């Protein structure tokens, strides 16, 4: 009891002392809070806890946003892209080494040129190469200077966009948002807002980090390219051949080096443009006004979510565009970006919208919802003017979307059919089908078209898409792409389900994309027996193929020779008929079923030569021969002797 009295006395003294020495506002606030605590203990304690949480979140947000923008600002200024490698000992030492190797390669090149000139073999070419040799020998000593000049040029352009570094406007706006969250009395709304801001801070951090990684990778790759530049330049002296490419693979070969160097030099420019645009958007569009009584929570979150997401989407799209111009080496960074986006922005957007609207609990589903929401909105907005509605109003967007749905309904049947034909379902996924197609395109497509007619047509389209995918990704060389297209052509030609028009369309499309399938050349460069092995009679029945075999030894062999199969022979004649070409048919009519053709040709030819020689002998006895006739007779006699 005595102890309790002592304690109460102590508290009283502290309170009196606090009242005497503190300013009036503080005392007033204290008494007000003390009153609140006594009158509403639960509300006051929860508000205090919330305040602590908000302070922690604010600290985290401020830290990660500050860190990300610091790293990115550093990577796009002196520490990062400005490092052209001239001061780096690794670059200097490495370059000296490769210059020595390049000079040795040039000496070998000089010897080859000399031999060619002496022997008179491709002399003109050798002389041209000699000029190249002199230019290259000179330029090799200045590669760091030339490379540095180009890198500096691109950096100057980039700095024009991001010279001021990364704006901290997003960080400021986030902190404002958190302050407004502090003033909010609704616990659920405050929690959602905090979560929202935290997630967007993380997304922003990841995207900025990816850009930093890209710029740092650029610096290192450009250093490596500068180091190997003498060797790459030296390969300019050598003729373009696979053998030279084997000796100087990848970036050691001029064409590859040059392509990669330019890509990595320029990569900084689109990146800077997108960062700049994102900065502008952050300043212009981010909204974090506190929620008002009249506001609906979902609308409010959508509004601020969109204003935050837009600059980030811009940055992400810019990143992917930049990466796509970086070629094969940049692809892994792009892959990293995609993964990061899926793990942060997509998931976050989905989570928030899921919570706010349908209570969708799974993050993945939410991510999909975000995408769908954005896509549907964009489609509706784009289509609205066509149905006479305003694109910016919700009604307008809905009407536009409805119009698109009508059109989509009429074509979706076809798409579904394609899916059905490929038996895409639980067991057969697109990925599995794609992998199978890719494998067969590489290894030959003998058994590729093994389904129903509809399935085969769908598979033909899928294989074309696969080639297009490889072309776009740059994962295959033109030669490899052509090889795959040739494999597909042969397989499709052999299959009766694929129409001539579809094959010709595929060839035409490939040609416009730089993938050449010269089937005429292919056929003329293959022996008749090989053609019969590779092409089924069905292929020879196609008019456009048969036409190519008219007036060729292979075509003659297939039609006339006893060693040709009856099926191929008939198919080729059918193909000539199908070609509907009077010219092709006329040419084929000249020797169809000829007894003077391949099988009997040699004997008949000998008979002709003997007859001609006899005529010349008679003429010699009668009136003598001209010099030309004498030479002809000697040639014929030699032919018969052999």
């Amino acid at each position, binding site marked *: 009891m005595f102890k309790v009295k002592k304690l109460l006395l102590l508290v009283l003294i502290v309170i009196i002392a606090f009242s005497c020495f503190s300013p009036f506002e503080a005392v007033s606030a204290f008494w007000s809070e003390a009153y609140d605590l006594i009158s509403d203990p639960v509300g006051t304690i929860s508000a205090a806890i919330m305040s602590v949480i908000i302070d922690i979140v604010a600290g985290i947000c401020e830290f990660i946003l500050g860190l990300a923008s610091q790293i990115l600002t550093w990577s796009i200024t002196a520490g990062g892209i400005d490092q052209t490698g001239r001061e780096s000992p690794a670059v200097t030492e490495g370059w000296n080494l490769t210059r020595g190797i390049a000079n040795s390669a040039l000496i070998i090149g000089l010897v080859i040129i000399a031999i060619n000139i002496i022997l008179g073999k491709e002399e003109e070419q050798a002389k041209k190469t000699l000029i190249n040799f002199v230019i290259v020998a000179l330029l090799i000593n200045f590669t760091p200077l030339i490379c540095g000049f180009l890198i500096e040029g691109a950096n100057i352009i980039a700095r024009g966009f991001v010279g001021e570094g990364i704006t901290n406007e997003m960080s400021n706006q986030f902190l404002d948002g958190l302050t407004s969250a502090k003033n909010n009395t609704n616990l659920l709304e405050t929690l959602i807002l905090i979560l929202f801001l935290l997630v967007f801070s993380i997304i922003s951090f990841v995207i900025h980090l990816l850009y930093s990684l890209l710029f740092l990778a650029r610096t290192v790759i450009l250093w490596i390219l500068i180091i190997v530049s003498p060797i790459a330049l030296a390969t300019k002296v050598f003729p373009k051949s696979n053998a030279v490419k084997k000796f100087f693979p990848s970036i050691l070969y001029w064409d590859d080096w040059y392509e990669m160097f330019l890509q990595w030099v320029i990569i900084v420019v689109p990146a800077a443009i997108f960062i700049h645009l994102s900065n502008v958007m952050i300043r212009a569009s981010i909204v974090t006004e506190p929620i008002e009584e009249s506001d609906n929570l979902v609308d409010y979150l959508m509004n601020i979510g969109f204003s935050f997401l837009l600059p980030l989407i811009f940055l992400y799209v810019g990143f992917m565009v930049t990466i796509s111009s970086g070629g094969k080496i940049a692809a892994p960074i792009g892959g990293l970006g995609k993964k990061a986006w899926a793990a942060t922005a997509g998931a976050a957007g989905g989570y928030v919208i899921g919570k706010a609207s349908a209570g969708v609990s799974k993050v993945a589903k939410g991510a999909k919802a975000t995408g769908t929401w954005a896509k549907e909105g964009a489609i509706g907005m784009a289509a609205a003017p066509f149905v006479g509605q305003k694109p910016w109003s919700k009604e307008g967007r809905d009407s536009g979307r409805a119009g698109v749905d009508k059109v989509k309904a009429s074509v979706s049947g076809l798409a579904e059919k394609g899916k059905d034909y490929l038996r895409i379902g639980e067991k057969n996924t697109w990925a599995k089908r794609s992998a199978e197609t890719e494998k067969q395109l590489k290894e030959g497509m003998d058994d590729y078209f093994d389904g129903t007619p509809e399935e085969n047509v769908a598979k033909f389209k899928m294989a074309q898409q696969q080639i297009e995918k490889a072309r776009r990704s740059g994962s295959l060389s033109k030669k490899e792409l052509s090889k795959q297209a040739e494999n597909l052509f042969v397989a499709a030609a052999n299959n009766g389900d694929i129409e001539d028009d579809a094959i010709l369309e595929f060839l035409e499309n490939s040609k416009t994309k730089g993938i050449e399938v010269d089937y005429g050349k292919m056929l003329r460069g293959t022996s008749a027996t090989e053609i019969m092995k590779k092409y089924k009679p069905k292929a020879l029945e196609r008019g456009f193929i048969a036409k190519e075999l008219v007036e060729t030894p292979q075509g003659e062999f297939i039609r006339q020779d006893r060693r040709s199969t009856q099926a191929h022979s008939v198919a080729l004649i059918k193909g000539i008929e199908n070609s509907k070409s009077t010219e092709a048919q006329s040419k084929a009519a000249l020797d169809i079923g*000829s*007894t*003077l053709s391949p099988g009997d040709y040699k004997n*008949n030819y000998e008979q002709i030569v003997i007859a001609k020689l006899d005529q010349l002998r008679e003429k010699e006895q009668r009136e003598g021969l001209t010099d030309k006739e004498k030479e002809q007779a000697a040639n*014929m006699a030699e032919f018969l002797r052999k």
Partner: protein
Amino acid sequence: MKKINDNIISFLGEIILKNKLEKDVVDSSFDYSEKTTLLEKTLSMIFNDVVIKRMENGERIAQFHPFVKLRNIVDRLINNLITYEDVSPLLKEEFGFSEEKAKEIALLIKENKDIKELIEKEDIEIAQPNIEKKVNPKSIGYQLLK
């Protein structure tokens, strides 16, 4: 080896049509109208479904097609493997013509301007071309060796 030309194809087609030799190699869809050229008619009597069907059944075109039989005779003639005198007996043997008919057609062949020209024309394939010299006379090595 010399080969016939489009004019001779039409000429042989005309002989076939005049003597109604095409009956076994065409069907009712064959176009006899005046609008179609002789060359087109001849080609469509070679490249059609009836002929292809017969070939699919194992018949050799050289043994059943009147155009191919005629052309093979002309081929031998223009390549000096036979003479004009051989044409009539060969026509009799291949088509079962009467003596008179065979002589009539042989005469038509003999009088054909294009066939005559081809018989007289020299076969360019018989004159063997010289092997191309691969040494470039302008090369430094060549000049030094000279």
